[in-house]
């Protein structure tokens, strides 16, 4: 029960989001029909916008501190409006982008409850994207972006893994461990961004944040709670999950989370313009401390599962000794634990040259896909869709024909299995 008003965006946009959902979140209907089973007595999910009532009316930070918050973009300084629309676009991109990533490996969950939690989280991310679209639609951004709201919405709904604004949302998931670690680490960055945007000098943005933050609290639990249970399984020798796998995934996502805060030296402009209360480095440092706590608590949970005879005090002392001496305690080695402070420069983060090279490869992949969509599937036979990807691509292509403009795929698209494409290339 919160003090909010709810609305739906105009029908043509609402329908576009529903069509997007049918393509990228095909398990939505399963979630809704099983809602009561997984989340008994929770209010039913609803695709709508929430605007918090009773939020501060005056600018809370920056050079216009104390002045009335803007209700329209045209009331803002042009520089502030530019930063704001970029942030809204990026936020929308992350919400839709994460669903595309989660969908890839959702079916690989080993536990029905964990899968349902991720599925609910995906539906709520869809609502967050919808909320951001509502900010674009309800105002006139053309003088700032040179683009109509309609075109901006279409541009966002067209984005796919590989073309999203932020790097973390352009990475394909490889297993359900990605789903969970992503929730624990990348959604945590989301929490920071939403918390900071809660003071935005643009009232519709600030008022959008509280409900999103409420939902984000559950998304973080969707990551952390399964991780806590997985370290116990790892301690019990489960073949399904090991500390090494968890560590590998932490190393994969921590650097990407840190990157999402932007340049460590930046953020002052956003503070000056009243859009955020913290510079990048300050927020990043708080985030880093939270990750350290998550890792510490996972290690303690692991150690107590390995050595159940230890009481709280003994386990805490043993963990402290292991981390300090890097030795072994009753058969548990320092190397068995997760890294105490995931190093942003270690395994996951590639050197600048390697990152640029990876970006070039990604762009080349996108170019190949574009060419294939234009009707040259045999041109890059190795990149043609395999049997597993075909149904997804088919849905997209059919959606294109059925839905017209907002389906998001305007070029002709041919579906040719990889084997056939290779044969015709020969």
């Amino acid at each position, binding site marked *: 029960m919160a003090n909010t008003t709810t609305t739906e965006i105009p029908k043509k946009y609402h329908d576009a989001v529903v069509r997007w959902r049918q393509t990228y979140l095909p398990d939505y209907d399963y979630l809704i029909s099983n809602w009561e089973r997984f989340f008994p007595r929770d209010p039913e999910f609803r695709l709508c916008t929430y605007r918090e009532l009773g939020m501060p009316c005056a600018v809370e930070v920056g050079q216009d501190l104390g002045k009335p918050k803007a209700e329209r973009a045209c009331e803002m300084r042009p520089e502030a409006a530019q930063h704001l629309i970029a942030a809204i676009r990026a936020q929308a991109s992350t919400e839709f982008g994460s669903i595309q990533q989660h969908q890839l490996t959702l079916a690989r969950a080993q536990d029905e409850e964990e899968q349902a939690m991720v599925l609910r989280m995906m539906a709520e991310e869809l609502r967050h994207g919808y909320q951001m679209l509502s900010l674009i639609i309800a105002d006139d951004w053309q003088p700032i972006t040179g683009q109509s709201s309609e075109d901006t919405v279409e541009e966002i709904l067209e984005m796919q893994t590989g073309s999203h604004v932020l790097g973390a949302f352009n990475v394909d998931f490889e297993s359900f461990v990605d789903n969970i670690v992503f929730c624990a680490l990348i959604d945590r960055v989301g929490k920071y961004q939403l918390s900071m945007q809660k003071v935005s000098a643009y009232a519709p943005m600030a008022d959008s944040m509280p409900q999103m933050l409420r939902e984000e609290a559950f998304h973080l639990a969707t990551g*952390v*709670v399964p991780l806590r*249970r997985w370290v116990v399984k790892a301690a019990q020798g489960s073949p399904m999950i090991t500390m090494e796998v968890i560590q590998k995934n932490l190393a994969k996502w921590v650097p990407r989370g840190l990157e999402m805060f932007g340049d460590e030296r930046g953020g002052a402009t956003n503070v000056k313009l009243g859009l955020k209360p913290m510079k990048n480095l300050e927020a990043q440092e708080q985030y880093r401390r939270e990750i350290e706590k998550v890792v510490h608590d996972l290690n*303690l949970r692991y150690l107590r599962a390995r050595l159940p005879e230890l009481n709280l005090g003994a386990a805490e002392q043993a963990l402290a000794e292991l981390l300090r001496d890097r030795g072994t305690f009753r058969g548990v080695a320092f190397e068995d634990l997760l890294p105490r402070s995931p190093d942003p420069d270690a395994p996951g983060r590639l050197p600048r040259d390697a990152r640029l090279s990876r970006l070039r490869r990604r762009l080349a992949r996108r170019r190949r896909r574009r060419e294939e969509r234009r009707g040259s599937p045999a041109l890059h036979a190795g990149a043609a869709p395999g049997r597993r990807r075909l149904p997804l691509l088919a849905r997209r292509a059919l959606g294109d024909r059925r839905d017209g403009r907002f389906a998001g795929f305007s070029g002709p698209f041919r579906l040719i299995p990889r084997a056939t494409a290779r044969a015709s290339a020969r």
Partner: protein
Amino acid sequence: MTETALNIRSLSELDLDDIVRIVEKTRDLYQPDLWEDRVTYYLRRDPEGSVVAEDGGKVVGFMLGDVRVGEFGIEEPTAWIEVIGVDPDAAGHGIGRALGGAMLERFKARGVRRVRTMVDASMPEVERFFTALGFEPDTLRPYVKRLAD
């Protein structure tokens, strides 16, 4: 420690280990699975309905609750306080009172008119605690039927 030094904030998933620790210290029960389920439940339903108290960055107490409609036929949105825990090392410094006060303020700000809880009669100190917060006996009474020993 003084009550003014306490920081009362909403519950988060990061508090899980602290809650497990406080319960273990007070009841000598290590039940991480149970608290993972419960914390997830409260975060899912009403993350602002539960609070923790921090002293110098360390969690020293928690209070879990939420706002529900239709419970026991009560159609009016009603807040329920369900669990309270205070680190025994920090007891006697008004942490429970601070948590309770913050919870009641939050519920009031959200337009809730009734806050309910249940107290075990074998724990008079808990009854005194809620009485001090302004709670009084209600017409709603708990009943139990034992189906097995």
